[in-house]
């Protein structure tokens, strides 16, 4: 069943700007992950944050997790045209051995 819900669903920004996406979920989780999908391709794992972590960085990516609000955000700093893609959050619920994906968030970076 789908659990992650990204907001906003579509985002258009200028190159060099920051892009922020949010994800909410309903049940308790072990970890939350973000994936990128370029048009017509498979998903690529970007970053994983565990339920006992509040913030994590990887290159130009910054992920935060607020388990009290059951929400996460993904920030892409200094965006590039190559960041144009769909971004999905996915949750691994406690006691559940599989990921539930959100519907995705389309980001367009205009050169």
């Amino acid at each position, binding site marked *: 069943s789908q659990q992650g819900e990204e907001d906003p669903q579509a985002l258009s920004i200028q190159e060099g700007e920051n892009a922020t996406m949010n994800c909410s979920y309903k049940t308790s989780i*072990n970890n939350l992950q973000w994936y990128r999908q370029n048009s017509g391709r*498979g998903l690529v*794992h970007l970053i994983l944050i565990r339920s006992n972590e509040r913030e994590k960085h990887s290159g130009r990516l910054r992920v935060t997790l607020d388990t009290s609000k059951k929400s996460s955000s993904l920030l892409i700093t200094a965006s590039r045209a190559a960041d144009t893609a769909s971004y*999905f959050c996915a949750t*691994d619920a406690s006691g559940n*051995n*599989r*990921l*539930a994906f959100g519907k995705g968030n389309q980001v367009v970076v205009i050169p």
Partner: protein
Amino acid sequence: DVKVTQSSRYLVKRTGEKVFLECVQDMDHENMFWYRQDPGLGLRLIYFSYDVKMKEKGDIPEGYSVSREKKERFSLILESASTNQTSMYLCASSSGLLQGALDYGYTFGSGTRLTVV
């Protein structure tokens, strides 16, 4: 470079045909998954497997079956293809604990876009 390979990028089949979608991973991963992706619906889990010869139903298993005879290969079978099975099919694999939390991300294949006419 480790990867998940799906045998076809594009496939066109006729209604009623039996269709096999193949997925092979070279990472010695225990876990393998089949999803379908449709506009507005996101990714929906069809079947998954945590071990050879083991399979579990996901959220939308109707009309599908799977086979995992070897650790590296996970096949999705459409018993009698129908037009509502036209979709993008994504295979994924992961390492991780058999029970409990998955501590690692999934590695996805490039997808198979299936059209049933």
